[in-house]
């Protein structure tokens, strides 16, 4: 219980102690209040991170595009998020005349609530977690897919053609990119033997006998595909077809303004940060790290993943809608399935514990060697997949060129004849 590493546990225990002593007459009330307080702390942490992220994002993206970014409000523009907040609070909130009042007002609330509930399961330090569900990872993915209905509510509620079209495009994208996310979490769960996020992190730490290898080294393909579909899942950077198309002016939140619009943005950023946390928990070993206290490690890893998001946002152009669907259904999903089958076979052939070898008779191999084999196999499938895709692209490009050449020849012939 050295003070720095378990700072959060100590503070948590301290506050819980105070509450229990105040409400000692009914332990049930005391638990309810501590749980409520923990939930409020998590929500405020998420909301504050939203403000910090908007500022950091605008600064970094500006720096990438060789401009300065917000620096007027306060020193170094640090008060910019607060200025945005005030603007969002005081801006007028119009609801379209024929809007479906109930659905229209409920949609932003539902999106924000869904974004925040993923934080209930994320472990910030050993023992510091909202609720340690033994179905942690499955819960996070289900909540991700639950927010799809909220987007349809927003699209339909504002009774506006473009909002409806934008909502369906976004839903088609989200529904599509949910599949590779589901398929690429499976290898991690197979290796860790449980869906709980705490167990997954334990498997990546040196604790109780398993070598502390982050799962990124086991399954690079899963990590890459999970990250890209995570970006597409929150409709960010290269995949933000939400407000991109000319005819879908601002996607499904075209009719919202003021605080309701801010809730949509809060939902987007909090979801993006949640994807960053989940990625670092699943593939980078969560709060496991040698010297620094655990929660600092987690923030560092999540920050690194979020900088990748920001970097992609600053550099990559927007993806066309059919490219986006083709990338998902014709490349990520088949690749993930083939990779899953390969992982299943390899995890049975190369076994680390003698007990397993006795049961299923694989080749006994040290954890690091198993990691190396898995890494090579995973990287090979990725390269093979990319090669195959490149070859198919070349074939279709050549075919297109033939068609163009023939058409040009015909035009020349008719022009010549005329």
């Amino acid at each position, binding site marked *: 219980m050295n003070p720095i590493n378990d700072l959060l546990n100590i503070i948590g225990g301290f506050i819980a102690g105070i509450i229990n002593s105040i409400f000692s007459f009914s332990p049930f009330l005391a638990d309810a209040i501590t*749980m*409520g307080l923990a*939930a409020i702390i*998590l*929500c405020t942490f998420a909301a504050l991170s939203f403000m910090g992220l908007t500022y950091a994002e605008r600064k970094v993206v500006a720096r990438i595009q060789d401009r300065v970014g917000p620096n007027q409000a306060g020193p170094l523009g640090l008060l910019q998020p607060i200025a945005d907040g005030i603007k969002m*609070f*005081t*801006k*007028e*909130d*119009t*609801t*379209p*005349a024929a*809007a479906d009042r109930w659905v229209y007002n409920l949609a932003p*609330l539902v999106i*924000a*609530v869904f974004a*925040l*509930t993923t934080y*209930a399961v994320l472990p910030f330090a050993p023992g510091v977690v909202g609720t340690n569900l033994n179905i942690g990872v*499955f819960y996070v993915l289900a909540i991700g*897919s639950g927010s799809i209905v909220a987007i349809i509510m927003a699209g339909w509620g504002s*009774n*506006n*053609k*473009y909002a409806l*079209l934008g909502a*369906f495009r976004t*839903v*088609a994208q989200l*529904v*599509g990119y949910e*599949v590779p996310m*589901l398929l690429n979490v*499976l290898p991690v*769960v*197979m290796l860790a*033997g449980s*869906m709980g996020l705490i167990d997954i992190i334990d498997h990546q730490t040196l604790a109780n006998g398993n070598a502390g290898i982050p799962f990124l080294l086991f399954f690079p393909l899963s990590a890459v595909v999970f990250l890209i579909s995570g970006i597409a899942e929150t409709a960010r950077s290269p995949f933000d077809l939400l407000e991109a198309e000319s005819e879908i*002016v601002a996607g499904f939140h075209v*009719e919202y303004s*003021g*605080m*309701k619009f*801010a*809730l949509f943005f809060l939902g987007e950023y909090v979801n993006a940060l949640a994807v960053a946390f989940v990625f670092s928990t699943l593939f980078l070993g969560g709060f496991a790290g040698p010297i620094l206290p655990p929660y600092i490690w987690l923030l560092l890893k999540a920050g690194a993943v979020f900088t990748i998001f920001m970097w992609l946002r600053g550099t990559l152009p927007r993806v066309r*809608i*059919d490219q986006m*669907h083709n990338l998902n*259904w*014709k490349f990520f999903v*088949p690749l993930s*399935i083939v990779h899953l*089958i390969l992982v*299943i*076979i390899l995890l*049975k052939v190369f076994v680390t514990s003698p007990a*397993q070898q006795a049961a*299923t008779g694989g080749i006994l191999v040290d954890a690091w060697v198993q990691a190396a084999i898995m890494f090579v196999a995973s990287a090979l499938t990725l390269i093979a997949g990319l090669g195959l895709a490149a070859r198919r692209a070349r074939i279709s490009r050549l075919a297109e060129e033939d068609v163009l050449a023939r058409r040009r020849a015909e035009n020349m012939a008719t022009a010549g004849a005329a």
Partner: protein
Amino acid sequence: MIVTAALLMGVTLIAASLLRPKKPSKAKLETYECGMETVGDTWVQFRVQYYVLALVFVVFDIEAVLLFPIAVAFNALPWLAVINLILFILILLIALLYAWRKGALDWE
């Protein structure tokens, strides 16, 4: 957790609705359509492409829900069970290939 998140967001929404000015004018209430009058009702020619993609998503959603418990029990699976598992994944791969062949995955 869900309840507190909802409460917190609800409080911010209500606080916001109190703070902001209440000046609804006829012009502001029109739905936004690049400034022009809205043409026709909200009904929009809805392509069946969205529905077909949702169908293929249902296949893989079910596969994931069935695969997660098996992934948890993976370490103790004998070889015969692993073969069944691979058979299950191949069956659902056929569903994807059929949809691909049928052009359901193309997005013109």
